[in-house]
């Protein structure tokens, strides 16, 4: 028995001595030596956004492979070169949209030397905001809730904040309103933090200011398990002309299908126009709905796959080279991955140029202050509504929101409308 006790104590001592090995030991390399910089962060491959995030991750991987091969930021940026000794690598983890998990992933990736971050959804962004500010880490984001505008601001979006999408939709609708009476507006949005983030006093004040009558709001589950008949009939009963919300495709598609069933929509028995902010991707919508989705609008979205601009041509080329089976069938968030990865690479490239430091000397604070905050008019080749500009008080990269509508089973570009910067806190 005594032997066992000593064995136990010896084991305990060994464990205690071995524990310091857990501590992160940063490696050092001499300047000029080959260095690896990491991009990426959290991707919610589990949950409602799984498909979006998988496509975004694919965009990251293909773009980074291209950058490593060509050593420039993008085909239209031959002057923005990457040092030959620098290689980028994508580092990612599935956070499952789980706040507990995102905290430990954040620490793990930070420990591995990721100088930037990526947040995949609103709960993650909210949970990491303060931490990232304290650690001086800048992040790109696939979520664009108004809370990003609340200081501290270190999370950067490449598409407009949802409230600005709503304002752009409202501006466009009002521009095309021909009746004498004021149009009646209602929110029809997802019943979660992302969806309700557009229903703010500032948003209502803006809508009333430009001449809308606010009727109220209706909520549908993020992924409806039954048609939102009650909500839609409420819109009809209250004479709503335009409604807007933040939904993902699994929410907006059944909503529009039910609208068709109830004879609601442009050119139908009951005239109403329904618009959604970017997480409802019109490119995904049209491939699933075709002409059944006629009249549906998306604000703040990416260019369509057949857009002749540099950005979408580049995305199509990457897709053809790396995933030929996905050409014509890839989720549009693939281009989000390209734009986010480009933003992270540009932030690190600028940080190296502005500080004069080599890749292995860079800190996350350098990348935030001399990188992200210094990105001005970053041309995404027309993928985003406008070139991206960031600064300490400007985390909303695009200054204009693109309005797209399904017309005759095709995506019609209705123009871009300025971001009104509705949300102020």
């Amino acid at each position: 028995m005594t032997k066992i006790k000593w064995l136990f104590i010896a084991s305990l001592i060994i464990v205690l001595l071995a524990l310091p090995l857990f501590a992160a030991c940063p490696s050092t390399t001499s300047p000029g030596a080959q260095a690896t910089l990491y991009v990426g962060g959290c991707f919610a491959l589990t949950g409602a956004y799984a498909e979006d995030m998988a496509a975004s991750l694919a965009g990251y991987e293909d773009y980074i492979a291209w950058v490593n091969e060509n050593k420039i930021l993008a085909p239209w940026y031959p002057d923005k070169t990457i040092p030959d000794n620098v290689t980028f690598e994508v580092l990612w983890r599935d956070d499952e949209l789980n706040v507990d998990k995102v905290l430990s992933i954040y620490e793990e990736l930070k420990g591995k030397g990721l100088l930037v971050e990526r947040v995949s959804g609103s709960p993650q962004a909210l949970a990491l905001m303060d931490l990232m500010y304290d650690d001086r880490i800048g992040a790109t984001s696939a979520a664009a809730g108004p809370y990003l505008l609340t200081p501290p601001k270190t999370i950067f979006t490449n598409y407009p904040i949802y409230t600005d999408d709503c304002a752009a939709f409202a501006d466009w609708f009002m521009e095309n309103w021909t009746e004498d009476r004021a149009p009646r507006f209602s929110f029809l949005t997802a019943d979660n933090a992302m969806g309700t983030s557009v229903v703010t006093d500032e948003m209502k004040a803006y809508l009333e200011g430009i001449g809308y009558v606010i009727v109220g709001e209706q909520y549908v589950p993020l992924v409806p398990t039954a048609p939102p008949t009650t909500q839609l009939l409420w819109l009809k009963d209250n004479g709503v002309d335009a409604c807007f919300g933040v939904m993902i495709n699994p929410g907006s598609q059944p909503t529009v299908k039910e609208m068709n069933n109830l004879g609601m929509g442009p050119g139908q028995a009951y005239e109403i126009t329904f618009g959604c902010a970017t997480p409802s991707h019109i490119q995904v919508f049209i491939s699933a709905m075709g002409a059944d989705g006629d009249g549906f609008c998306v604000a703040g979205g990416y260019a369509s796959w057949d857009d002749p601009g540099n950005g979408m041509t580049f995305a199509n080329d990457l897709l053809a080279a790396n995933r030929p089976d996905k050409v014509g069938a890839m989720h549009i968030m693939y281009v989000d991955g390209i734009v986010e990865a480009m933003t992270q690479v540009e932030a690190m490239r600028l940080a190296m140029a502005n500080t004069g430091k080599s890749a292995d000397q860079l800190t996350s604070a350098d990348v935030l202050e001399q990188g992200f905050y210094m990105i001005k008019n970053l041309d995404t080749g027309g993928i985003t509504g406008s070139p991206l500009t960031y600064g300490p008080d400007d985390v909303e990269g695009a200054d204009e929101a693109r309005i797209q509508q399904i017309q005759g089973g095709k995506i019609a570009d209705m123009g871009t409308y300025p971001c009104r910067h509705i949300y102020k806190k």
Partner: protein
Amino acid sequence: MGLPSGTFNQSYAQDMAIFRTKTHWVMLIAFLIFLFTCPLYAGDRILTVMTTIGITIISVLGLSILTGYCNQISIGHAGFMAVGAYTSGILTATLGWSFWAALPCAGLMAGLVGILFGLPSLKIKGFYLIMATIAAHFIIIWFILQFQNLTGGGNGLSVPRPEIGGFVLKSKASYFYLVMIIACLGTFFAKNLVRTRAGRAFIAIRDNDLAAEVMGVNLWAYKLLAFFIGCVYAGVAGSLLVHYVAFATVDQFPFMNSVWYLGMLIVGGMGSTIGVIFGAVSLKLLDELVTIVGPILSAAVAPQAAASLSLIMRGLVIIIFLIFEPRGLAHRWQMVKAYYRLWPFSH
């Protein structure tokens, strides 16, 4: 509980003691030394994982009292955590209270809301009570979203970090100590509670509520007491969680968390305080393992191979435990201790 040969109880106090031999005390002290020296050699990531495990343990301890000991199955635990989280958040962020005053209020408020939603337990049980507690979760979240001016609604509420005399508990290590101290106290209280009159009443209700009532156990009072205590734990855990990330949002308390908390009880062992710790630690570490394995699997198999891996693994583990070890890891631990005690004559 088995003891080494030659150890006899000579008084009621000895019989009831949690730590009864020098070995027990040595192991406890060694564990506490190990636990509280962790910040000296563990990195931020490990401290983060341990802190979230600590918060989970506090929450699941409450569920263990409610479900494991009193058999009042609740799937609204994440909702009760949200009550504590928002109470504490509002008191500190809006009314400027100290965290130390807000924390007990968070527990108290969650406990009171627990009593409210525990009222149906007097009339219904089993499957029907599960449905009632599910409803509790969604009603709570609905209220939080409606009172936007107070709670921040969907945009959440920024809450301050705890302070002690001007020292802000901002570092990983300082918050780790706070959580671990509360987790240790919570564990000690839970362990003791089940040895009290109330604890024995809970167990009597669990084993046969009709027989318990016949014996004079006041079902009405004890069921509500179990709800109150269980939800106080949940409220404290919720408060600790939002002050850790300095932000409160309803998305921090998804419904599925309540289901996984029950899963932790199954894996750890229902009706066992040590089982709570085993269950929370094992499922949380499983999560960590899956997170690391995910990208490797994706690279080797297919890009989306890692999707939902964690949910699958957790589900599988729960199924395996339900089939092969329904009494959970706590029972395995008892077997290991018995083996150690009898070694080398374990036959």
